[in-house]
């Protein structure tokens, strides 16, 4: 019994460390109340998601999907500790490769490098795998160790020279990539609870993270002393922030949460014409829109298409929803409209959504039901 109690204590942080009263799980819906104006939809403000293909093969829950930057390969991963690679042959997507023997436990996330030559995998076994295809097939060439427990997310910077990982150990790590060697450049302990997701800015070396502590944070390197620092904390969600996504420009960020809302944040640089104060001349990120009343359970993932500007959400209510900024939207008080809801997109929670980077409207989703699905969004 004593063994198991101590095991448990290290799995679940001692309760004294958990700040109480920040969130109210018994009354989550009350926080979701917010003004959203219902108006008649105009032409082009409705659409539908058509199922293209169901990709079966994983055993158990599929946690994540990631498109190759050229859009011609999809990687998926999950509870069965494998990574599956799906290629298009003719009109069908087929499972050509199954990568095994990289991890001892669940693979939580996979990420392609922007050059497309490398794949990274984050696992509950506390390691991050790096895979490349130099030998003709994908092999795990490195296993990055350092996190104390489950690695939940991994992301490559646009330049490919930086990799980031995050874990239940509350830390975010930045790794420098130098000729297939990975060196830890920083360990960021800004979050007070486990960190769920890391995402890089689409053009700059700015990192965004989402956490169980209900916040998202932004980090960049301080050129003066080569130190990575937190430059912004985005507080407004009332429960775990599960995921986040930058828009094409990198000036907006969408976050999704256990509080059943999506929030859109906008960057205000120093000396902005709107007169928003920017302490230390760091950009300030303001919540300019909250999408509430649409999702009925935790929202596990969000993807912002850099081609079509469509937002897709993956929800614990088994649905996929598509949003877009309205054409008559104001820059500083934007309006986003729901274009489509695909109820029962899967038979269980939807864990991940990803827009294809080259084919407009092509979406991949992953679910607890063990399936990956491909969808095509069409305007009505």
């Amino acid at each position, binding site marked *: *019994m*004593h*063994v*198991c*109690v101590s*095991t*448990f204590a290290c*799995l*679940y942080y001692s*309760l004294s460390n*958990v700040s*109480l*009263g920040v*969130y*109210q*799980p*018994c009354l989550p819906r009350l926080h979701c109340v917010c003004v959203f104006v219902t108006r008649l939809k105009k032409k082009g403000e409705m659409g539908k998601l058509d199922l293209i293909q169901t990709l079966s093969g994983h055993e158990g*829950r599929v946690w994540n999907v990631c498109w190759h930057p050229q859009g011609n390969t999809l990687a998926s991963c999950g*509870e069965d500790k494998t990574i599956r690679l799906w290629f298009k042959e003719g009109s069908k997507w087929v499972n050509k490769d199954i990568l095994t023997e990289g991890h001892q*436990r*669940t693979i*939580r996330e996979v990420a392609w490098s922007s050059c497309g030559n490398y794949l990274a995998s984050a696992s*509950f076994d506390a390691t991050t795998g790096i895979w490349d295809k130099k030998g003709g097939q994908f092999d795990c060439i490195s296993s990055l160790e350092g996190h104390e*427990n*489950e690695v*939940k997310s991994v992301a490559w910077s646009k330049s490919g020279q930086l990799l980031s990982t995050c874990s*239940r150990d509350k830390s975010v790590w930045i790794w420098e990539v130098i000729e297939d060697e990975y060196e830890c450049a920083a360990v960021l302990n800004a979050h007070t609870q*486990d960190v*769920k997701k890391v995402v890089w800015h689409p053009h700059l070396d700015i990192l965004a993270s989402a956490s*169980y502590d209900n916040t998202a944070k932004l980090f960049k390197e301080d050129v003066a002393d080569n130190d990575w620092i937190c430059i912004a904390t985005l507080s407004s969600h009332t*429960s*775990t922030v599960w995921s986040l996504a930058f828009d094409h420009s990198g000036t907006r960020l969408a976050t999704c949460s*256990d509080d059943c809302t999506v929030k859109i944040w906008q960057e205000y640089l120093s000396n902005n014409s709107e007169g928003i104060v920017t302490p230390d001349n760091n950009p300030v990120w303001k919540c300019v829109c909250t999408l509430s009343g649409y999702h009925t*359970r*935790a929202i596990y993932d969000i993807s912002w298409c850099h081609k079509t500007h469509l937002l897709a959400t993956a929800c*614990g209510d088994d649905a996929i929803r598509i949003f877009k900024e309205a054409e008559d939207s104001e820059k500083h008080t934007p309006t986003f409209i729901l274009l489509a809801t695909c109820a029962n997109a899967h*038979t*269980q*929670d939807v864990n991940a959504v990803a827009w294809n980077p080259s084919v407009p409207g092509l979406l991949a989703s992953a679910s*607890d*039901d063990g399936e990956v699905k491909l969808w095509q969004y069409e305007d009505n």
Partner: protein
Amino acid sequence: MGFDDLENINPKLYRKCNDREVTTEEESDDIYDEFDAREIFDLIRGINDPEHPLTLEELNVVKQNDVCVDNKNNEIKVLFTPTIPHCSMATLIGLSIRVQLLRSLPPRFKICVQIYPGTHASEEAINKQLADKERVAAALENNDLIACINDCIVVD
């Protein structure tokens, strides 16, 4: 574990309810039975307390009235009441209930296990942990912990 280590040395005991009386409608294969609260209660009332050689029912930690079943929306909610407000086993008990239901019920159900409001000092923190499916999934890959949960769930 010696008596000195027990948090609650002398818990109050409650009477077990009688076995469910099976009706002829329920025995008929031609009639579709929805899940009901008693059925869910029967799945969890025999779970052993991690500290005492007693079941959650005998300690009044779970009660049929605190089980809510919504067949239409595929939702099942179970509230449990720790025997004392500082019970360090509360998360383990909640996890055992959750695991038992996950293993027993069809996957279409969304299962919510929470502490009965006002009965534990760390109610919000524990509820948040139990609701986080990623943490639960990771915990269930821990062999020591799953062995501990299996000890609670096993019915003698």
